[in-house]
């Protein structure tokens, strides 16, 4: 025979169900918020990466560099290239330069190319409409007049090229 306490305990099942439902609901809500926050965070990460990639491509599209003159000094063994930022974006820098003969790579300078304005002051980058120059130490492999191509890689990853003769 059941005691009185046991009988009363059996009659309190409804209270446990409410509590359990509330606990369950709270857990679901908490998990939902965590999942939502995680989703938003992940989404932000993806959109940021996509935005960075798209922005980089857009900036590359807006970059345009024209060569004004390329001069090889056979005495000092230097190659001086005069360039103009004729694009739509400021702060164009040169990160690498390559010299080619036909399709053959003759020489490359990839350690960062210092830029100068035409008045020989140092420049971090060229803004729109600004002219500048850079000087490379380079020895032409041919003693005679030959044609070469210089390619420059900008800090944003755009390529520009120009022919010159030694």
């Amino acid at each position: 025979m059941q005691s009185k306490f046991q009988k009363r305990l059996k009659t309190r099942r409804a209270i446990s169900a409410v509590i359990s439902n509330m606990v369950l609901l709270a857990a679901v809500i908490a998990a939902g918020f965590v999942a939502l926050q995680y989703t938003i965070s992940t989404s932000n990460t993806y959109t940021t990466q996509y935005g960075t990639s798209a922005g980089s491509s857009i900036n590359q599209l807006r970059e345009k560099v024209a060569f004004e003159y390329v001069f090889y000094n056979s005495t000092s063994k230097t190659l001086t290239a005069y360039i103009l930022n004729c694009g739509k974006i400021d702060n164009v820098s040169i990160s690498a330069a390559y010299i080619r003969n036909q399709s053959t790579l003759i020489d490359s300078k990839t350690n960062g190319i210092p830029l100068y304005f035409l008045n020989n002051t140092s420049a971090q980058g060229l803004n729109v409409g600004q002219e500048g120059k850079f000087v490379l130490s380079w020895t032409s492999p041919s003693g005679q007049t030959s044609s070469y191509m210089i390619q420059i890689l900008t800090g944003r990853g755009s390529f520009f090229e120009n022919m010159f003769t030694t």
Partner: protein
Amino acid sequence: MRNSNPSKGKRGFSSIVGSVFMVLIMSVLASGYFVYTLSQNTAYNTAVGQKNQLDQSVRSENLQCLNTTYTPFNGTNNVNVNARIQNIGSTSVQFITIWICITNSTPWTGYNFSTLTNATVQPGNVYQLNTNLTVSNLVSGANFTYSYNYASWLITSKGNTVALLQQIISSNVIISAQVAQGIGSISMDFKAFRYYDFGSGYVSNGTVLPSSKNSYTVPNSNNTILALQLTNYDNSTQDITLYSNSYVWIVTPQSSTVKPAAWAIANVTSGRYISSFSTLTLPYGKSTTVYFGPSSPSFSGAVGNVVVPVFILLYGRVGSADFGQNIPFVAFNIQT
């Protein structure tokens, strides 16, 4: 019998809340990503459009250089560049920099640039360029005493390069022969031949030239100065400098020998004979009057008219190289 326990009917409530969160998450994820992607795509398309527009505007620049002259001045290393550039494109063009490059056969190369201001030319208009450049500040050694090869070009604000071409002689006018390198670089205008007859008078420094005669009949005993119209059509388009040992030379059959005397190249300035002569430059493509004399054939023993062959002997430099040419197509009728 129906379930009388109300808790049994609320078992799906958490699932509903979870579903709502799931829908919310998916909505936030999809809509946010979609909208952002769309905005980035729009920005990219805008950039592509701007790039195409920029390329199009660069291609729409169309300029024609009508004539370019280079004039050294003020000693050495300075040169004046004069050119007319017509905008035959559909957009206005702004020139920002002019470059000049000078070379010779040493080989030596000097170059310099100059920033241009207010150098904008509207479609259809002509821009008159007249600027002085000094080359020595970058590469020393330029000396325009000798002929140099010039090249210059303009840079537009859109990055185009416009070469300043020197006057081109139309191939419809000049027909170069296929042999003997076009029969020389200098051409003579036979119809423009003149001479100045000083009669029995003595010709000295500062003597004023008399009226010219347009004839190939030349007096035997009188002092004459010959005026030849010579044009430099050198294939390399370089100037030709004539030295003092350039002559008009004739051969007479009467004396049975080559006449030792001849008309030496002379200096005539402002209608007066100047006894000193250094050099004479024949600019490429331009007709220049070249004077020879004074001298006279002074054939002895000849009677009446004697037709003799004439050799125009020209010696000097073309660019920085030696130059020599003989024009043997002339005849004089020597009137004794």
